[in-house]
């Protein structure tokens, strides 16, 4: 039987090695897999490349990975926010590399990595500093930048509810980067509030098809067959 549930957050991230690239879903405070991130922090893999829209605030989430010195590079659209002190500290001391990507380019680069597409031409950023060094193309008088896929070794995804096959639904704007990231990593690990039995999600409402998901973990796995 196909069953992607794992017993604990700790087990879910146990094989993430030093130097791995890890996508982390979320936008601001919304749709972040906080328990998976905390497990990753405790696991202690170093030299990570983190791909995420933001870089965490206060002592929580990605900020805790930056604080503990586990991150060597971050690919991000909006790393600086009110309270992003650990990102700012690591950036200013030069201990992390930042690849700044416009937000729509970030989500599309992740999407195409999952979709087997080799690149896309976007007008976003054309003629700006963020296009420097990139291939450009003029089509019908409009300038475009060639952007390449952005895959990862692991994705940490936050959803509202899943089933043992990995089908997922989300909560309001908590969707954000999570569906694209689920499709773009070699191993996709999902944190959910609850797990229902196979067939418990309406097939019209599923946002992430289970084929993209490798591991699923909820707070209380023993309630899974409820």
């Amino acid at each position: 039987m196909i069953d992607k549930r794992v017993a604990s957050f700790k087990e879910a991230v146990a094989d993430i090695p030093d130097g791995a690239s890890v996508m982390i879903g979320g936008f601001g405070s919304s749709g972040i897999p906080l328990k998976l991130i905390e497990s990753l922090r405790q696991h202690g893999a170093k030299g990570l490349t983190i791909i995420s829209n933001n870089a965490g605030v206060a002592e929580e989430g990605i900020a805790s990975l930056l604080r503990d010195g586990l991150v060597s590079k971050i690919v991000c659209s909006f790393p600086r926010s009110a309270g992003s002190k650990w990102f700012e500290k690591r950036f200013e001391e030069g201990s992390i590399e930042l690849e700044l990507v416009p937000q729509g380019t970030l989500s599309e680069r992740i999407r195409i990595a999952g979709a087997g597409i080799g690149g896309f031409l976007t007008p976003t950023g054309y003629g700006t500093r963020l296009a420097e060094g990139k291939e450009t193309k003029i089509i019908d008088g409009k300038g475009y930048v060639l952007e390449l896929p952005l895959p990862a070794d692991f994705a940490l995804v936050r959803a509202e509810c899943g089933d043992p096959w990995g089908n997922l639904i989300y909560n309001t704007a908590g969707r954000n980067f999570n569906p694209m990231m689920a499709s773009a990593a070699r191993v996709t690990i999902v944190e959910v509030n609850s797990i229902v039995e196979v067939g418990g999600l309406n097939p019209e409402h599923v946002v992430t098809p289970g084929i993209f998901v490798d591991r699923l973990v909820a707070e209380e796995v023993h309630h899974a067959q409820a």
Partner: protein
Amino acid sequence: MLRLSPEQMAERVAQDIPDGAYVNLGIGMPTKVSNYVSGDKQVIYHSENGILAVGPAPAPGEENPNLINAGKQYVTLLPGGCYFDNAESFAIMRGGHLDIAVLGAFQVSARGDLANWATNNDKYPPAVGGAMDLAVGARKLFVVMRHTTRDEEPKILEECTYPLTGTGVVRRIFTDLAVIDVTPDGLRVVELFGENTFEEVQALTGARLLPPA
């Protein structure tokens, strides 16, 4: 000279938002615009993180931590709204589906170049978010900003000196002194607030202005 308050500037922008428009209000001052859109207009607000028909702030205690806008403030959803992922949200932005986007700016050039994401201080950690996508994608891009810096330096310039967000993207500039359109002929003043004169506004502008038509 008459200098509008941020609230008055937002109110002036709101007058130019038509009934039925799909609108994205950038973070900061532009978010005030929705407070002044007349109640007899139906305007649908888009939030880049993946919401259409963003509603007002929730009552205290009713916040859903997942339901925030691009400025990370708690919001609600209006009836008729919906959610989607970030790739779809930026398809809406980049694909020309929004009627109007309203952004703040550090500088705007005579050709409508926009600079609003970085200064020339490379030590300050940068952030770009969705600004570049909105700049190229919205059907009309409105900028709302003070006419000058706090040091009275002009922010409307022949050429931006800060890193660009997009080139030739701004349609209309709402400042605390005037409303100015970016036209093929150049920057044309379309409205002067209070008793402000064209010459006074020109004197605080780093690019040549055209008088009201």
